[in-house]
């Protein structure tokens, strides 16, 4: 199934885009989807970033199960203020 991945800050730079479409297995969790996305990067150091996940503009746990067409935001450590 296809999901949309939203990317910000250093992850936007790493992926070279603010959003990408990702093909994942049906029933994939957000952490599985993120791992697949990170595996596509040449630079493996991003896998170690303490990324949080958001679906539908709310934070979700690592084991949240995605559905076709979901938008998953990868939230690197925030630094507002």
């Amino acid at each position, binding site marked *: 199934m296809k999901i949309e991945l*939203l990317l*910000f*800050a*250093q992850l936007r*730079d790493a992926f070279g885009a603010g959003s990408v479409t990702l093909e994942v297995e049906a029933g994939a969790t957000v952490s599985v989807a993120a791992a697949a996305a990170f595996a596509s990067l040449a630079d493996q150091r991003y896998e170690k970033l303490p990324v949080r996940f*958001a679906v539908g*503009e*709310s*934070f979700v746990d690592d084991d949240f199960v995605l559905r076709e067409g979901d938008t998953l*935001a990868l*939230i*690197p450590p*925030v*630094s*507002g*203020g």
Partner: protein
Amino acid sequence: MSDNPSPRVRFTEEPIEIPADVGTADTTGRADAANGAVVTFSGVVRNRNDGRDVLGIFYECYREMATQEATRLIAEIEGEFPVRVDRMAHRVGELLPGDVSLVVVIRSAHRRAAFDAMSTFVDRFKDRVPVWKKERYADDTASWL
């Protein structure tokens, strides 16, 4: 991208500041005589960080979620403290040292609750509202913090 129409939560490219009439008028412009304390917070871009000279900061946000998360945070703070979070605004885009990046205004009947609520609000904002900054340094480098 347009700004959130709600006057209480804004993420904006435009300069932000504490309104001159903040002591006497709430976000609706009405006098607010029920609250005896108004605490304001301004976050300002520093010219040094971690021993390095900072030339500027680029702020970006996930605007839809930042607006929702800040709105949830306001409800949370108002549930935990006897206060009203009058408004908050965060700049996005390119800022220079001395520019105001964050403004928060909290009202309460008495000052202690407003001070405590402000401290908690800013701590939680910095922990979870999706805003990021990239600092530019005098040595021609830059990094996301």
